[in-house]
């Protein structure tokens, strides 16, 4: 997966922005709770930590995904609070 996408960065990000995004991403995937997520975030940070690597990625990346489902990795599972109405609508629709 494209390291820019993993850390949610724009291509113009500088060293400091990359580090900030890395530290922020780590909070969502600490190594003890989500080792796989941590490995992915760490690899992305390693690939982006210097300007030359970022240039190479910008010009010659991203590597294509053999397994398209990998794209879902950057869309973390969400559980949004949407209020009671949508839940109640399911109950009402099921009654009909």
């Amino acid at each position, binding site marked *: *997966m*494209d390291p*820019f*996408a993993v850390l*949610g*960065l*724009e*291509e113009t990000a500088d060293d400091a922005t990359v580090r900030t995004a890395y530290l922020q991403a780590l909070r969502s995937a600490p190594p003890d709770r989500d080792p796989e997520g941590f490995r992915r975030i760490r690899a992305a940070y390693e690939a982006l930590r210097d300007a030359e690597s970022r*240039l*190479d990625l*910008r*010009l*010659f990346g*991203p*590597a*294509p*995904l053999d*397994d*398209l*489902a990998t*794209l*879902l990795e*950057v*869309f*973390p*599972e*969400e*559980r*949004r*609070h*949407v*209020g*009671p109405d*949508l*839940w*109640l*609508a*399911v*109950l*009402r*629709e*099921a*009654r*009909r």
Partner: protein
Amino acid sequence: MSKPRKQQGGNKGVQLAAGPETWRTRIEALLAKGKSRDAVDIAKQYLKHAPGVEAEALAVRAYAARIAALQASGMHREAQALGALVSERFPAHQAQMAALMQQSDVATGNFESLLASLLHADPQRRRDIEAMLARRLTDPALLAASPALPPDHPLKRAAGVASDLFTAVTSGPLPPGALAALDVIARQSPLAPWKLLIRALEAFYRGADDAVLANLAAIPADSVPGRLVPVLRRLVEGDDPSAARAVAVTTLIEQVSGRRPALQTQLTQLSNALAARDERRALAAVQALLVLLRSAPVAVRRTFVASVLHHWHRHNFSPQPLLRLLPSMKHDPDILRLLALTVERRAWDEAVELWEKYVHAATRAGILPAKGPEMARVLLHMANLFPADPDEVLDTLGVDSEQELRQYIRASDMPMCFDRAALLERALKADPTPSVFRALVDHYDRRGEAKRAEVEAEAWHQAHAHDLEPLLYLIRAAERRGAVRKALNLLAAAEALDRVHPEVRQSRFRLLLTGAERRIKEGKAALALEDLEQLAQEPRTSEGDHRVYVLALSWVAAQQRADATATAHYEQLLSTTAANPVLQSLVLEAIGTALKVQLPRTPLAAASPEQTLAGLARACDLFRALDRPLAVPTTLYKQVEPHLQQASAAQLHSLCAGGLWMQRPALTYRASGYGLALHDPLAYRFLLARGRALSTALHHDAPERARLCLRAARELASRVRDMEAVREASEALATIPSWGLLEAMITGTLSPPEEEALTQEDIARIIEDERQSRTTPQFPAVSSIRKRRQGSTRRQRRQRRMFDDLFSMLPFKDLF
């Protein structure tokens, strides 16, 4: 009342004059068959024909059945309307109708009459009402707000708690301990399923999926909250994209889970379509995914496009329909870049052309500066796509020579980007970094344009004065063309930069030695002696017998200079240092031959067999280390052979290696035989030497013996981690024709049979067999010379353009 309609078969045959029994029988038969509508029609006729209590009762039964049928099919409002009419027409049956209407009220969300009856219901009726509430109450807020129940009614209070917590849990994280309020809802309460649902939702938002599933499992399937059980399970366990769902369920899952479920669905469909090679379905999925990813970060969209292009190319699908879906390449040159990256995995020439188009488009769009590291990196990348073998480049482009290629480019019959040197020159103009210089020097060097390569290396040195690499190249280049003095001057500059660099450290000894030899050859003995004096101070001179060689050169130079004192001095030193007349003689003989200098012969006969053996072994090591030719007289071999049995393991190793170095495989063969007899721990080295010697022998079984020796040597070397010996054995094995491979080629099998690993017993047997093989096989007098492979006379350009049609549709005609 029901609308008038044509009389149907249901009431045919009932005579108006028939008796009450006939009417009743007929109506009850229709009710029994579930034909409530026909029953109502007949009952109405009966009532009209013979009004009375019995006919009225029958009519009310028929109406009640009809109302129940409407309720069963979810037509509660119609049932309510009919019930109201029946109540008005038959006031005596209002109570019966009221009970029926209550169900429709509940079904339409009106619980008031039901709740009102709850206040005065007997226990059985109470249980019925509560069961109905559990099955019908779609929102506890209705119960909580009902005016039918007093404010302090336990059910009303419990409903209030359930309603508030349901709203809270679906709207945001609950404060700690909030769920304790649910304790007011008893297990037998009609609100108990709501209590479980609220707990499941709280666990869901907390991420405690086990607790979610445990609570869901306890919710009765026929209760209203039970309808959310499968939905929550989907949210927790992952959605099945193929499952049919109601609109409200789809909306809820999408809103709660974000884009992920929809993406998952479409990605699965795309993967399935690709696997089935169904281009149409794949396109539809790509289209849907592009919409879903519209608001995703740029990097995600780019990864998706790169991946789709990759799969499209791999499946050899037509690119045009896909490209029509993607953003216009004119407005987004990045698509061209991704296309180039996709194509370069299979066809470098097409990729180079696409990259060139990207460079033009991106420069024009202002996303790639015309100068600077980015442009240099792209151009260098394009140059690196060319195959290393120049013949392969010409083959692919379908031209016979570099000259022809340049002619085509000049005539615009081929794009400029196929001139690799020009690409590198452009990269240099964009950003003259060491990597670009390195590529340029390497390019000219590989193509034999030594002068041009030196010019570029010189420019590199000027541009990056602290870079050692161009200096090392210039030293090697100067040495290659015999400019030893210039090489030494450059070496001084290199030493100033990095004295401990391995190549710098090795170069001074090598250059001074070459310089001294060259000066002797040119008759400049005094200058040669100066070099040799410097050389005497070099650390490498102390290694092995290097000093013997340096002193021998000094003696030759002193002789050349007719300096008797110096000659005597060096002769004395040489004799003492060599301490072996055979070594001394071989060194002087070799120098005389190489430098074409006449030298007095040293009588070899004066040496003992031990001295002869040691002298030859040391000479082998010395000349191999200095990379100088060693010529050994045949008489000397004859003197050595009878005494090989007395040689030490080290001497035998030297002779084995020296034999191969001097292309005297017979010497290697014999020395390795004695070496194997010594039971030396480095026996694998003797096996390796023997295998290499045997691989050149003319005897019919020599290749097979060579193969066995080399395999055994490789196995033993790998056990002691001597990877250098493993590599040598593997390389030697690769040069021996394999019958297995030949057979595989003849029989058309896919691969030769795999050789089984040698066991310890196999290796012991191979060593023993070689020890017993005393007869030296016949070896060729001169080693065969490798013939240069001749290229084809006319190269045909390979037809492998997967994206051939692409070029015709690129919207860049105006750019070129």
